[in-house]
């Protein structure tokens, strides 16, 4: 008896099933508490109550049956095991632009996972293509299954791996790259790739889904179609994120990789550009460009710098927070901090001496705002001026998360003994659209 054929069952139930030679997918008869049930034994979520078995009744419903000492289970026939049937890959049309879809995991590529009963990444790019055959009419598509990770498990090493893979395709003169990614940290990855792959000659489009692709209402298909179309046809070479603009399936917003953040836990329109507008929208099969400061497709200014150093830290200030955490982290090797301060960029005045000591030791301290929207300005109040005097660097209208990623990248690309001024200079240089000098009003559209 193969243990994997009894997913989720344990203890006396597992013993009973093994004794009766029953495995998941078999048709069984169960007699429990004076009642007789007939159905297919289903996988059991490991985290669910251990005293029950899950049975699929002939009408398709699952129920749980409590197993007691008097319960009997007998096998009627061996049955179909729950497996996902692979659909054939559709035929491709060759004279279309060449786009590669790199899959890394996440909801866009996920299915029901019986071990936990939750949604897990499973589909690779090839499966997606089979499920969304429209894609082959937009581009000649190749796929690469790079990773299969939940986005909360993505690390710097993955960013580097993604950058390497994309760079490889850029050098193969592909027309565009689509990278499927879990949405939770897609904003960070977008920023990381923006710094690692500067002014690329082709569009690099990150895409995810807020509803898994095993649901009829999944946003995976519409997002992916827009992402592939953008990769295939966009006139720019930028790292962007393609996700729903709003609750409707009609408009997909194309956000700049250094401007975008996930601002909702579950809604399709979770991704928003902050302190800027999306650079384009995809609607009715058309890509409408709205930004005018874009790196053109075919740009020869491509710079590849895929190095990151994780000795950077993002801290959110809150009332009454003590500054000693900075000292402790610095002692543990942290080379720089992004402080997400209040309002225009403040922390309480008892932080000033601690910050002064740290910057004297060559630790970088940059300031962004927990307001998310707007630009920090540390000249307006005394407290801001005191912090600047202590060595804090105001980071303009940069998003905190983007500032953190940029600091990791900066450390990765400067020599280990680099002067604090060099770090500061790089952090204040606009590299991939992460700093805008003009702040525009909210026009009511995202």
């Amino acid at each position, binding site marked *: 008896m193969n243990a994997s054929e009894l997913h989720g069952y344990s203890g006396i139930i597992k013993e009973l099933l093994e004794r009766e030679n029953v495995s998941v997918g078999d048709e069984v008869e169960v007699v*429990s*508490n004076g*009642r007789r*049930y007939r159905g297919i034994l*289903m996988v059991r*979520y490991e*985290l*669910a*109550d251990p005293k*029950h078995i*899950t049975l*699929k*009744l*002939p*009408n*398709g*419903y*699952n*129920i*749980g*049956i*409590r197993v007691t000492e008097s319960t009997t289970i007998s096998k009627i026939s061996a049955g*179909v095991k*729950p*497996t*996902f*049937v692979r659909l054939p890959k559709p035929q491709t049309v060759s004279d279309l632009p060449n786009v590669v879809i790199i899959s890394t995991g996440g909801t866009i590529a996920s299915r*029901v996972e019986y071990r936990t*009963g*939750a*949604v897990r990444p499973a589909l690779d790019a090839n499966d997606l293509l089979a*499920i969304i055959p429209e894609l082959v009419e937009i581009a000649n598509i190749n796929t690469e299954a790079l990773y299969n990770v939940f986005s909360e498990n993505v690390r710097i090493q993955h960013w580097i791996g993604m950058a390497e893979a994309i760079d490889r395709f850029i050098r193969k003169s592909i027309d565009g790259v689509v990278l499927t990614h879990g949405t939770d940290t897609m904003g960070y990855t977008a920023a990381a790739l923006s710094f690692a792959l500067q002014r690329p000659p082709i569009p690099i489009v990150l895409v995810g889904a*807020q*509803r898994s*692709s*095993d*649901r*009829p*209402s*999944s946003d995976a*298909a*519409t997002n992916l179609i827009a992402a592939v179309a953008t990769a295939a046809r966009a006139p720019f070479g930028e790292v962007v994120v393609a996700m729903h603009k*709003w*609750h*409707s*399936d*009609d408009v997909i917003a194309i956000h700049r990789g250094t401007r975008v953040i996930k601002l909702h*836990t*579950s*809604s*399709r329109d979770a991704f928003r550009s902050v302190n800027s507008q999306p650079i384009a929208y995809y609607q009715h099969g058309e890509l409408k460009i709205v930004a005018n400061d874009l790196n053109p497709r075919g740009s020869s200014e491509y710079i590849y710098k895929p190095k990151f150093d994780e000795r950077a830290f993002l801290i959110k200030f809150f009332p009454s927070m003590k500054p000693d955490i900075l000292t402790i982290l610095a002692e543990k090797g942290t080379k720089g901090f992004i402080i997400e301060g209040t309002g225009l960029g403040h922390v309480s005045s008892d932080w000033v001496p601690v910050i002064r000591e740290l910057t004297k030791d060559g630790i970088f301290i940059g300031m962004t705002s927990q307001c998310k929207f707007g630009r920090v300005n540390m000249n307006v109040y005394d407290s801001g001026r005191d912090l600047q005097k202590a060595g804090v660097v105001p980071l303009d209208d940069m998003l905190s998360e983007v500032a953190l990623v940029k600091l990791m990248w900066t450390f990765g690309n400067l020599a280990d003994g680099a002067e604090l001024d060099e770090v500061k200079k790089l952090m204040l240089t606009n590299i991939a659209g992460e700093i805008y000098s003009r702040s525009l009003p909210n026009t009511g559209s995202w």
Partner: protein
Amino acid sequence: MEDYSKVGLKVGLEIHRQLNTKKKLFCDCPTEAVEGAESITFMRRLREVQSELGMVDAAAMFESRKRKTIIYHADLKNVCLVEMDEEPPHNLNPEALEVALTVALLLDSKPVDEVHVMRKIVIDGSNTTGFQRTCVVAIGGQIKIKNKIIPIQAITLEEDAARIIEVRKDEVHYDLSRLGIPLIEVSTEPVIESPEEAIEVAYAIGRILRATGKVKRGIGTVRQDLNISIRGGAPVEIKGVQELELIQKVVENEVKRQMHLLWIKEELLKRGVKKEDIWGAKPVDVTSIFSKTSSRVIKRQIEAGGVVYAIVLKGFAGLLALHPSPGIRLGAEIAGRVKVWSEVEGIFHTDELPNYGITVEEVKVLRDVTHAGESDAVVIVAAEEGKALDAINVIKERAVEALDGVPEETRAARPDGTTVYMRPRPGSARMYPETDIPPIVISQDYIESLKARLPPTLDTTAQQLVERYGLSKQLANDLIDSEVVEDFEDIVSKTGAPPTLVASTLTELLRSLRRDGINIEKITKAHMMRFFELVSCGKVAKEAVRDVLTAVAQKGQNVEQIIEELRLWSPPTSEVEDKIKTLVKEHKQEILNDERKAVAKLMGKLMKDYRGRVNGALINSMLLKAIQELKSDTL
């Protein structure tokens, strides 16, 4: 009338009823409609997916072939991100689960040990998720009808679907307010053997549901699905029977339909028709025959660049148009299937031709060109080429099924009791687990505590109505079955009108008006309340009730206006008394000669003046009193 036991009729009922819980099944939105909220619309598309067994459901595939843009209207007082499929479902509403378990116990059904919420794939757009969340709460049980036991299959709890507002060519509109309201479904085994029995079972289940005091009332809160088969036929699911009284008609019609299809099968076999003949038939392009046609439908299609294809159904001549009862024809079956699958409107067959602007000559050429024999039928389809070919395949498919008799399918009930093809019957492949909600363990202790506080049955309620209001047992039950007990008690207590009058108005009278084809939807409780107030204070005679309510239904005005227009105000008692006195004086001699004859004559005269305005019994007593006075004066 059929002898239903002879045809082996078997009916299973599925009664769906909205629960009147405070909150929806998987979120905290109210289940009562809240007026005047801000509303938004958004657009979605749905796609078919594989089930956990790796299969794609036939019904789901079918819907996805007809993929339309879906527009949702969300009223933000009744709809949140959960209904919009923008937030995972919250936990299963415990209040709804308790009602369902209570119903289960009342029906002697056994609660499951652990409830698993499932996703039932429905991609017509009625659920934003593309599936309906549903769970089996209890299995088995029974309900007793007279001396027969009807076994219950299962009791399920599910979320109600969005309400369809409008269907356009490429777009379908839904309102989301209803989505997520808890819906209980009680399904019986298919053991019901006559249309009358089906109604009885529906009423009996209805009484159990209402005993919980937690079900919604009124239009759209109840829906019945029927599962009907006859011997040699096939189980056919008929959805969306809103009114109980329609059940009988639907069953009668379905029996006729299945018998007709079985007869056609026999006839086709007798004629030696083979499936290969039908499959083998090739579509013939006959567009040129109709280049100058006067058929408007065909002309329009050809002008729009469409084609006309013909297919020969060997041996089918005469069978397509034959109809044992209105609406039951093989031709209609084929056309219904084509309409739904390929959305083609221009379909004709030789059994009904020449007609619709198609001439004898055109039919003759059509038969020649397609080499159709005397005993063959020819079906033509006018549409754009792809759709026309699709339609031809659907026609062949349905014609082949005619050789098997009755196809298993899901049909939709129409208000007249006939049905139309809706989709193939969904299989178990359209169910997969709702992974966002962990299984819910139902403890034995909880079940015991529910058993200890089961609500009284409606028999007790009926007895109370009889005792408190002096109603007949029959009228009390009628109030319960018509689900107007609360309205009845409210009207009687607020207006002081005679209980039997109010009860019979709310039940018998409204039913009779509806039977007369009067749309009673405009009659509100407020109308009733006002009318009975006027009856109570003697301003209107109770006899006016039918005329007044009929006018309310037709014109929707207020009760006073109608009474005024119909001149139904009761005259002051003094006026009636004076009139009677005068009459009595005028007919003094006649009264003294033959009192009985005179009373009859005078009553006739008075009723002519006062019918509907003054109670006849009152006039009669006033008249007799006046005669007494006359006689005593005379003596």
